């Protein structure tokens, strides 16, 4: 098998020394992690490798020698390096060398049994920093740190082993060239360990802040459960209002972000980061909305416009009912039933208008306080808007329920009387239609009632149709608002930003590029990180939303509309399904 030597690009200009890394025999990978420079004491090198192996559970060894002749070729160096092969026994033994001012690389492998030839080695360059920080998606099944031994890690597939080796060997990269240690190494951090004061300060401050906030949040959640359990009608109301759902969701999110437990795996860390960014964006947008509302007295204008709009809607509904009570679209209605239904609904509208006029002095105050709630977030403001819309169109909802119930009763009556008309009946015990012999007077009354219901059907159906359409319109508007809220809740902005600015962190795989080849040198490839496409980022890291979607398919919706069953579009996941 061809031996593949993974060489870090940062070591390409390093001085001569020993190659230190991991050998994966199943794939033929020799992953070079660092170069140890002269002078060194072999015992100290072995101690360092053993220490790093204990910390990282990855089997490290001295893989070979690296020769970078800066000045005139030194013959003694060559012989010295060959002598080292006898000191650190490793099979196979890799000998890499590079000419000083040219691109000529030389690669020799000596392994027992197989002949050493130039064609048997492939040199693959990789950027150590990027490979260290990258996360492979989908990740290969990595053994966790607790199960520990070096042989278990060798069972992974392919290139994931390279990523795993580099990521686990952080202990090797802790010392830079300014340290006074016994062994001098070259790796990606040898010019100076990467750190940031702000990050360290944030880490130090996050401990007490998280503790304080998580205790506050747990107090808040305990309070909310206590109050809600005690007052029954309030609990019912809260389960119906979108605002309460949204507030509960945000409370859960904040509890997740400020929890004192450290994230166990990268997925949880991304989730926390995404949630935090989503909350911050929400609050920022809410504050922008708040400042826009309070400028130029927009709340006053809104309150002044609200009552006339509600009046206008009620007037339009009245006109619609007058139209239905006449001859709508040229259809001839049953006069008596028409008048009854029309007057019934007109009385409701009259009640509604009086209620609105009663509330009108308080509207501005209420709107002002509702506008303040936007500082909790744009999603809360939008949910409040949806709830206000639902409250203002409550009469349409009532009319829809009346119309639907009436229509449903009519359809049930018609279907059972139709069965009587044909001489059959519904057998409840056996859940099927059976034939039945009726008496003459039963047949007579049944047929009479059937005829009455049949000829009254158009009137009821028309009222039902009109009010269902109005209700569906209101539901559609509420649906749009919910979609927007869902978008803000569940979009993983931190992951998208990471994909934009640091694409190597989210890796879908790798890609290779063939570097120019000298006539008899080894094959040289450059391995780069292939970033995850944006659609996969959104799909993988989506935050779970509160699930306020219609849970039924179109066909069941049509069936319910036809038979007059009530549709509840905003059933939550926790409630029982229809």
């Amino acid at each position, binding site marked *: 098998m*061809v031996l593949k030597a993974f060489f870090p690009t940062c070591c390409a200009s390093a001085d001569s020394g020993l190659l230190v890394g991991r050998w994966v025999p199943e794939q033929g990978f020799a992953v070079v992690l660092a170069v140890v420079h002269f002078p060194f004491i072999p015992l100290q090198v072995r101690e360092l490798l053993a220490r790093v192996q204990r910390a990282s559970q990855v089997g490290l060894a001295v893989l070979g020698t690296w020769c970078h002749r800066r000045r005139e070729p030194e013959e003694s160096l060559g012989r010295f390096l060959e002598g080292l092969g006898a000191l650190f026994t490793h099979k196979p033994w890799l000998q890499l060398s590079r000419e000083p001012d040219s691109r000529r690389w030389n690669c020799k492998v000596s392994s027992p049994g197989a002949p050493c030839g130039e*064609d048997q080695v492939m040199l693959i360059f990789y950027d150590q920093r990027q490979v260290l920080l990258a996360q492979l998606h989908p990740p290969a099944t990595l053994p966790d740190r607790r199960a520990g031994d070096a042989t278990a890690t060798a069972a992974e597939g*392919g290139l994931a082993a390279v990523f795993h080796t580099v990521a686990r060997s952080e202990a090797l990269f802790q010392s830079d060239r300014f340290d006074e240690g016994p062994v001098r190494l070259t790796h990606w951090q040898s010019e100076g360990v990467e750190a940031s004061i702000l990050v360290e300060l944030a880490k130090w401050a996050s401990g007490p802040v998280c503790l304080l906030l998580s205790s506050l949040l747990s107090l808040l959640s305990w309070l909310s459960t206590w109050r809600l359990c005690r007052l029954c009608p309030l609990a019912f109301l809260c389960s119906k209002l979108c605002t309460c759902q949204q507030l509960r969701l945000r409370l859960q999110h904040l509890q997740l972000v400020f929890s004192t437990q450290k994230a166990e795996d990268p997925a949880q860390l991304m989730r926390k980061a995404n949630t935090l960014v989503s909350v911050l964006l929400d609050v920022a947008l809410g504050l922008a909305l708040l400042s826009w509302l309070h400028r130029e007295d927009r709340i006053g204008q809104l309150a002044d416009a609200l009552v006339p709009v509600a009046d206008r809607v009620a007037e339009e509904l009245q006109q619609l009912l007058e139209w239905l009570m006449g001859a709508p679209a040229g259809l001839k209605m049953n006069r008596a039933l028409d008048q009854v239904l029309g007057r019934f609904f007109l009385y409701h509208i009259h009640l509604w208008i009086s209620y609105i006029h009663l509330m009108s002095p308080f509207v501005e105050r209420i709107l002002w306080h509702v506008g303040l709630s936007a500082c909790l977030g744009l999603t809360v403001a939008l949910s409040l808007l949806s709830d206000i819309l639902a409250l203002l169109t409550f009469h349409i909802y009532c009319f829809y329920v009346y119309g639907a119930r009436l229509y449903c009763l009519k359809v049930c009556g018609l279907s059972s009387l139709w069965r009587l008309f044909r001489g059959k009946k519904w057998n409840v015990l056996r859940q099927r239609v059976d034939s039945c012999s009726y008496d003459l007077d039963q047949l007579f009354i049944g047929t009479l009632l059937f005829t009455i219901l049949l000829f009254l059907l158009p009137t009821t159906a028309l009222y039902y149709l009109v009010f269902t359409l109005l209700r569906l319109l209101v539901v559609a508007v509420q649906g749009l608002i919910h979609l927007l809220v869902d978008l803000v809740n569940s979009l993983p902005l931190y992951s998208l930003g990471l994909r934009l600015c640091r694409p190597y962190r989210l890796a879908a795989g790798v890609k*290779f590029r063939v570097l120019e080849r000298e006539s008899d040198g080894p094959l040289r490839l450059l391995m780069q990180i292939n970033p995850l496409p944006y659609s996969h980022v959104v799909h993988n890291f989506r935050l779970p939303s509160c699930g306020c979607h219609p849970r039924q398919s179109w066909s069941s919706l049509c069936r319910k509309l036809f038979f007059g069953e009530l549709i509840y579009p905003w059933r939550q996941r926790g409630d029982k399904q229809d």
Partner: protein
Amino acid sequence: MEDEQSFSDISGGRLSLQRRYYTQSCREFCLNCPRLSLRSLTAVTCTVWLVAYGLFALCENSMILSSAIFITLIGLLGYLHFVKIDQETLLIIDSLGIQMTSSYASGKESTTFIEMGKVKDIVINEAIYMSAKPRLDCLIEVYRSCQEVLANQKATSTRS
């Protein structure tokens, strides 16, 4: 060593296949697609603008003209970035894997790398898989070379 041959795709355009042989275990096949022709670009732009001018003559609204320009620009950018393939490359490295790269006219490159452990065999699927749509003779060339490399790899792995 390099080798160039010219083929044609299913719609009659000229394709050129370049074969690069790096070592016995590493080969690269590059398929160059015909470039965007000025004639078709001019034709499409003229059609869109004539239609827009016709609508403007009907409606007297200058927004139609500016939106037509906008649509043409966005459409052209979208076509170059998402649809028009410039070059497709297949790099096969013995015992590492197979890499397929498509590079679009706007410079975007999309790469897929499949590790050798996951490759059982290479077959000729329908031509619509490769976005450059080469004809069968071109596909046969690539197929034969890939099978050589795979056979070589199997031989070395059973030997070692």
